[in-house]
């Protein structure tokens, strides 16, 4: 049972990751890179990755930038990879494992070049995006299988698709109502508050859907509705309304594409999990090491 569940989740996560990675690279990654260009232009217009690794707050940045540019005038391609400017590295280098990210706003002053590792531009970055998608896909597929079995449902492709749609509603659509998918450089509330609201909304929506769709008696349907609606009445962490250098069209396109990709991701996980579950039920356990 456990082997079958893990194998089916691995296969489903892999297939979904292949599909979703292709879509991400084609549809959202170009928008993210474009947004990072705006982000960099908006803040000091400096090539952050050209800054020395041991950059400390309080140093004379403009002079430093001028020096960097003087040394290598060809280099300043104004792209910051994975927002090296936002001070994550400085924050986490000392406080590893504290488990809480102290929520730097994305509009934070730039210039603290993060000493943290990040994938190089181009192929490495794409590869790590794919790897992260694979990890996330297998994780979601495992959760999907666990929930289906815990609910006593045999994972046929149709049923698994139904649960996967519920998963999409719980972790993609419901949180996106309060926290729309954002490009780098958008203004946002502190990270910890947003993560807490995201988790609460996802858990509450999932529980609400379970009460409504699986339990399905009047009292649980009512309770489920309350659980689904409550996070939105409580409200997502507020975003201070500030002007963003990002074109609104870019942000809107990103939000729509992000939700579409999330839906395809989940639908593929569901269908593939149902299919793989049946396939691993038929074959000998020895063949289950796919």
């Amino acid at each position, binding site marked *: 049972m456990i082997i079958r569940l893990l194998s089916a*989740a691995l296969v489903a996560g892999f297939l979904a990751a292949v599909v979703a990675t292709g879509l991400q690279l084609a549809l*959202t990654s170009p928008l993210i890179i474009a947004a990072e260009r705006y982000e960099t232009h908006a803040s000091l217009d400096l090539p952050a990755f050209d800054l020395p690794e041991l950059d400390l707050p309080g140093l004379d940045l403009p002079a430093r930038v001028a020096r960097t540019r003087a040394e290598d005038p060809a280099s300043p391609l104004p792209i910051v990879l994975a927002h090296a400017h936002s001070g994550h590295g400085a924050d986490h280098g000392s406080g590893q494992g504290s488990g809480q990210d102290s929520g730097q706003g994305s509009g934070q002053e730039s210039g603290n070049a993060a000493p943290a590792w*990040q994938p190089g531009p181009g192929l490495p970055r794409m590869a790590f995006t794919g790897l*992260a998608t694979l990890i996330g896909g297998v*994780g979601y597929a495992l*959760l999907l299988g666990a929930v289906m079995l815990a609910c006593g449902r045999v994972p046929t492709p149709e049923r698994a698709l139904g649960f996967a749609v519920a998963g999409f509603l719980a972790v993609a659509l419901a949180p996106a109502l309060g926290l729309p998918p954002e*490009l780098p450089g958008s203004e946002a509330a502190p990270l910890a508050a947003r993560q807490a609201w995201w988790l609460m909304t996802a858990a509450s929506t999932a529980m609400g859907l379970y009460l409504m769709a699986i339990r399905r008696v009047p009292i649980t349907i009512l309770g489920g509705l309350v659980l689904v609606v409550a996070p939105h009445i409580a409200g997502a962490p507020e975003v201070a309304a500030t002007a963003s250098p990002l074109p609104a069209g870019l942000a809107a396109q990103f939000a729509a594409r*992000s939700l579409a990709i999330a839906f395809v991701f989940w639908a593929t996980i569901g269908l593939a999990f149902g299919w793989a579950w049946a396939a691993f039920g038929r074959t000998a356990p020895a063949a289950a090491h796919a």
Partner: protein
Amino acid sequence: MSTTAQTLGTQSLGTTGLRANEGRAAVAIAAFLGLGLVFLAGFAPASALHNAAHDFRHTQNFPCH
């Protein structure tokens, strides 16, 4: 309840009990692993992990930055 029914009941309970235990263990392991992987890809605060998964986090609408 008659004796036959009782023995039958315990017998079937014995085998289904085992099945149920195995199923519960599978569900628990899968849920634990799944949560761990999703945390790793979507929430882990270590900046190297964050940077590696950056584009995925943005696209899948995990809170980022």
